[in-house]
């Protein structure tokens, strides 16, 4: 359990950051870091541990975001409940898309099937103008309502306020706690076995279809919750901001840089990429050029990711 204590210590340190220098911009960047860390970790569960190379994770992020935003705007559903329903809707969609993918054994087919699903989601959202206003986007999404906590008093979120940082931190720690237990459970062992050889796993008693459904569903729920959080944080949604391929590319970049199939890799990658992209803004138009070059160099130098480079090849 010592490893778990280290992670908990890091989480507490991150929680203390805003107390040191509560500069709103820094807090905003850290909020994005944690959001991407949770999102990338959920993708890593499917692609890194189970070896199902999904290229449509943005679909579940976007579904969570739109479901929660629309429920809050059209039906007055509290965003707190929206986080749950958004996650549930994304999870249901995840199961739906996992079913046809179960029989696909080659990674490229899974990638194309999931990408296709995400694009379908994007086009539907773009064309349901009456409901979503299409590419004009949804504006005026309600903020998270204030909460009354026994020790802290009333937390009102306001526009991109500090409480959002703590909320995403709680979500992130919850996600990582679930993943930590899962990876070390028998199911975690089965996931890695399925990744290495489905035939062998099946022959040794692993219900491969059920295993894939569980991780796909869980991973989609997490993406949906982060999406719902995102909606009530940025308060504006367009189909291309949440359903488009660039989000998927960022998730892949973060996970690969940190270390595919490692527990902390996606988090490390999420912080590295998000901080890099934000603080390279000073470079103006050269930003993406430098960012792209850095990505290539990093992947060439550490093909197995930063975490394995530091902690050894066998870390998982």
């Amino acid at each position, binding site marked *: 359990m010592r490893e778990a204590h280290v992670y908990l210590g890091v989480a507490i340190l991150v929680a203390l950051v805003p107390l040191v220098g509560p500069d709103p911009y820094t807090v905003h960047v850290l909020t994005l870091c944690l959001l991407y860390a949770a999102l990338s970790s959920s993708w890593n569960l499917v692609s890194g541990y189970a070896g199902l190379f999904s290229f449509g994770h943005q679909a579940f992020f976007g579904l969570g975001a739109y479901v929660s935003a629309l429920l809050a705007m059209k039906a007055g559903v509290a965003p707190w409940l929206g986080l749950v329903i958004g996650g549930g809707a994304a999870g249901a969609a995840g199961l739906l898309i996992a079913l046809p993918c179960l029989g696909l054994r080659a990674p490229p087919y899974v990638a194309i099937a999931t990408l296709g699903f995400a694009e379908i989601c994007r086009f539907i959202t773009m064309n349901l103008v009456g409901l979503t206003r299409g590419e004009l986007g949804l504006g005026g999404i309600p903020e998270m309502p204030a909460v009354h906590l026994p020790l802290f008093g009333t937390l009102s979120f306001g526009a991109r306020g500090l409480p959002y940082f703590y909320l995403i931190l709680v979500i992130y720690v919850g996600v990582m706690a679930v993943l930590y237990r899962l990876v070390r459970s028998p199911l975690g062992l*089965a996931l890695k076995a399925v990744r290495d050889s489905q035939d062998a796993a*099946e*022959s040794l*008693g692993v219900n491969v279809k059920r295993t894939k459904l569980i991780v796909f569903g869980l991973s989609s729920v997490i993406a949906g919750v982060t999406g719902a959080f995102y909606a009530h944080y940025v308060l504006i949604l367009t189909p291309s901001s949440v359903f488009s391929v660039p989000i998927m590319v960022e998730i892949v970049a973060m996970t690969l840089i940190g270390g595919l199939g490692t527990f902390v890799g996606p988090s490390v990658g999420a912080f590295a990429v998000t901080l890099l992209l934000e603080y390279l803004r000073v470079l103006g138009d050269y930003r993406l050029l430098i960012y792209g070059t850095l990505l290539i160099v990093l992947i060439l130098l550490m093909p197995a990711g930063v975490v394995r480079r530091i902690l050894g090849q066998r870390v998982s």
Partner: protein
Amino acid sequence: MAAAILETREVSKRFGGIKALAGVTLSLHPGELLGLIGPNGAGKSTFFNVVAGVYRADSGTVRFRDRDIGSLPPHARCQLGLARTFQLTKPFFSLSVLENVTLGAYYGRKGDGVTLADARAAADEVLHVVGLSAKRDHLASTLTAGERKRLELARALATKPSVLLLDEVIAGLSSGEVGSMMEIIRSLPSTGVGILMVEHVMRAVMAISDRIVVFHQGRVLATDTPAAIANDPEVVSAYLGSSGSAAARSASA
């Protein structure tokens, strides 16, 4: 003889225009070591895959402990007690040797209320049986070809099978490894497990099998003791395409 633990009746399987199995009937008893031989393309692998659940038979029945298992998926058959190895070994490369075997010990006995710790302890015992204890914490990707064959066997044994299907676990081993693998296999039936082994190394399969089944063109050509099979002219001609005693000589050598 005790009742058969595994019984197939008139099992047929075709792939397009090719009839891979044309009505195979055979039975395996507890504690029996049944060798399955035959020329390439005789249907041995197809038969294995039908019994293990990878393929479904077009017709005929597969009964395991008096139960028709013909429609069960491979993982369910394994959990009932029917384990197999793969001719082309399929280790979980990124897992340690112990984890490879633990997976079989846990999921292969899913119904028995086994915990992960129980499974690990059982895996350690099996590693000892196959002589891989020293490699326990090594990644499976670092094993030699011979060690991978033993890992295949260990994982299958860890599921505590009552029927074990061995797909060429001896072929490809060095001459020193052949002896120890034969010894391991020969020691297994005393625990009551019935073994069906496909093997190309005649010397080995003839030496340790109780009975030999000869496949030819998707059918059972002969079933008898190793000594009788080695002198069966029909078997010899199936292998050599003419009557001769070369096969018999090499088999008894």
